[in-house]
């Protein structure tokens, strides 16, 4: 409409502009279509779905018990206090001990760090050997390993208990580390094998011609190239092992119960008052490590997954 008006009334230049505006030229104008609105609406709802519980957890953990009893779930704390957090960390009771979550945090660290390192070292060597040094039955072994990823954990727990207790490692720190390493092996080996298989095989050949052996190629050529996939493996393992409850409660033994088990014991205490604020604080504290890992390395995580996806 306006274009026509200008064309009729306006001088020469205006008419030229009018034609230019009506003809497709330059970047295509973006329009907000119904589909796009739908997508944004869906994203918003999804975000709220996950963020509202987190919001409630945070505000509750900052309230005193009298305020919580009023029942205004969504209200911001009237008298903010960090006492619940201190209690959760140092004083909350798990059964008879009232040392809070801090011993669990230390245990989880002692379990997670070595488990992650050992499993990643083993899996990367596995993946490298399976890709570049195929031996008789290598494919069968790889198939069996992958099959292991589909075996429900509960099925193998009892045999594992017997096995570990036979060698005297049941309910010890090395025991739980071994268990985590074993269960991380299928998925991590798959990850590394596919990553190495996607690299040009000529790289390996060139290194052979240069006289490098099994370990030299691994350490000098492959490891420096494995940063993206190792980031992915690290994130998977840190979150997986940190969040683990089942293996921790079964294999770690009382003295090495990880944070998740202690959190469960705090939250599910049946005696006394149920301290919602302390429970919320304790839960957030337990989830803090995987959350931090995601926030810090999420960018690399996506990049690593994408790198593998494009090449594979």
């Amino acid at each position: 409409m306006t274009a026509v008006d200008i064309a009729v009334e306006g001088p020469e230049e205006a008419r030229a502009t009018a034609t230019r505006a009506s003809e497709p030229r330059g970047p295509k104008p973006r329009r907000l279509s119904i589909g796009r609105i739908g997508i944004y609406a869906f994203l918003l709802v999804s975000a709220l779905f996950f963020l509202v519980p987190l919001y409630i957890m945070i505000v509750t953990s900052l309230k005193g018990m009298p305020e919580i009893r009023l029942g205004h779930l969504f209200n911001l704390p009237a008298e903010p206090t960090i006492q619940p957090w201190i209690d959760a960390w140092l004083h909350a009771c798990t059964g008879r001990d009232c040392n809070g979550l801090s011993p669990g945090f230390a245990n989880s660290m002692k379990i997670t760090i070595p488990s992650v390192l050992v499993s990643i070292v083993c899996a990367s060597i596995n993946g490298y050997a399976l890709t570049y040094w195929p031996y008789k039955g290598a494919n069968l072994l790889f198939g069996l390993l992958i099959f292991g990823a589909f075996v429900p954990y509960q099925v193998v727990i009892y045999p594992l208990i017997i096995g570990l207790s036979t060698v005297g490692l049941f309910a010890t720190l090395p025991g739980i580390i071994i268990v985590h390493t074993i269960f991380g092996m299928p998925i991590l080996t798959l990850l590394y094998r596919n990553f190495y298989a996607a690299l040009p095989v000529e790289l390996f050949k060139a290194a052979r011609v240069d006289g490098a052996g099994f370990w030299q190629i691994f350490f000098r050529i492959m490891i420096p190239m494995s940063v993206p996939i190792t980031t992915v493996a690290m994130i998977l393992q840190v979150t997986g092992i940190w969040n683990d409850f089942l293996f921790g409660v079964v294999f770690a033994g009382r003295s090495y119960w990880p944070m998740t088990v202690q959190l469960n014991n705090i939250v599910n205490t049946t005696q006394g008052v149920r301290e919602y604020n302390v429970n919320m604080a304790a839960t957030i504290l337990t989830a803090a490590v995987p959350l931090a890992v995601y926030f810090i390395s999420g960018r690399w995580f996506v990049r690593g997954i994408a790198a593998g996806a494009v090449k594979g």
Partner: protein
Amino acid sequence: MASVSIRKLGVSFGSFQVLRDLDLEVAAGEFIVLLGASGCGKSTLLNAIAGLLDIDAGQIWIGEKNVTWEEPAHRGIGMVFQSYALYPRMTAEGNLTFGLKIARVPRDEIERRVKFASELLQIEPILKRRPAELSGGQRQRVAIGRALVRDVDVFLFDEPLSNLDAKLRTELRVELKRLHQRLGKATMIYVTHDQIEALTLADRIAVMHAGVIQQLDTPHVIYHKPANRFVAGFVGSPNMNFRTGRIVDADGPVFEGKGIRIPLAGYPWINGHQAGQEVELGLRPEHIAIHGDLANRHEAEVELVEPMGPETIVWCRLAGETLSVRVEGESDIAAGARLPLGFPVERVNLFDAQTGLRL
């Protein structure tokens, strides 16, 4: 100086036999090109020479040494790959020195060799850069340098120019030839599917097909006297023109095909022939005459003209079949014209229709 000798080599992948009873003698200092389409076994042969795959049968000798069971690094070879295969996390210099450091070559000797190779290939300014920061041509130079610093007598090239763009490929091709001349004593085995590379670089070409060397000879003989129908059809662009027909006897042997008749007096026979024999006649586009005395004159209709600058390809129709003729670039032949053609008998190639062998 090192010769390479392949004796009765057999290689298979699973139940598929890629190479069988393959013999190849490469003289010291020779530039030999293995030419063939993909899947013909040329890269397999090269990898077998390098020791990068397991062989089933036969021997490989390099120099005076039987290296059949040797590790790749101990065979006295350097290798250049199509994808460059540079170590991505090392600088160009790191790539050059990696193998030397593993072999515990003394530091000053490493420096000397890197200096020699980088000067020869003009890569001194880029030695501190990572492969990702190099152009394709620079990467391939570094890859060649990595083979050079090994101070070996035999160089293996696996389609080293195939990943480069056309212009760069021509440049590096010339440089490779110059490199071979300068090194003097280096034996080079070069795998390619590009016949121009083969014809320009090689002292001798081995044309391979289905795991068998079809012909092993100088580029000139390969091009002008192909040993069989496959070689004749594979080398040359546009393709050699082929006509099926038979030899008839009319005061001496005469080739008779559909709409074409060429008396064969003066043909350089290398094999016996008889009247009535089914044969295939081949004639290269540039050997069909359009000027002067037209021997065995035939007339064809011009269908299409492709000017290429220095030359023009004229596509004609003769007795219902297409025929390509290479003429000079300034030619003014137009589509639709009738063109008298001459078929000089001394340029003709005859192949037995059954065996495909040159007659």
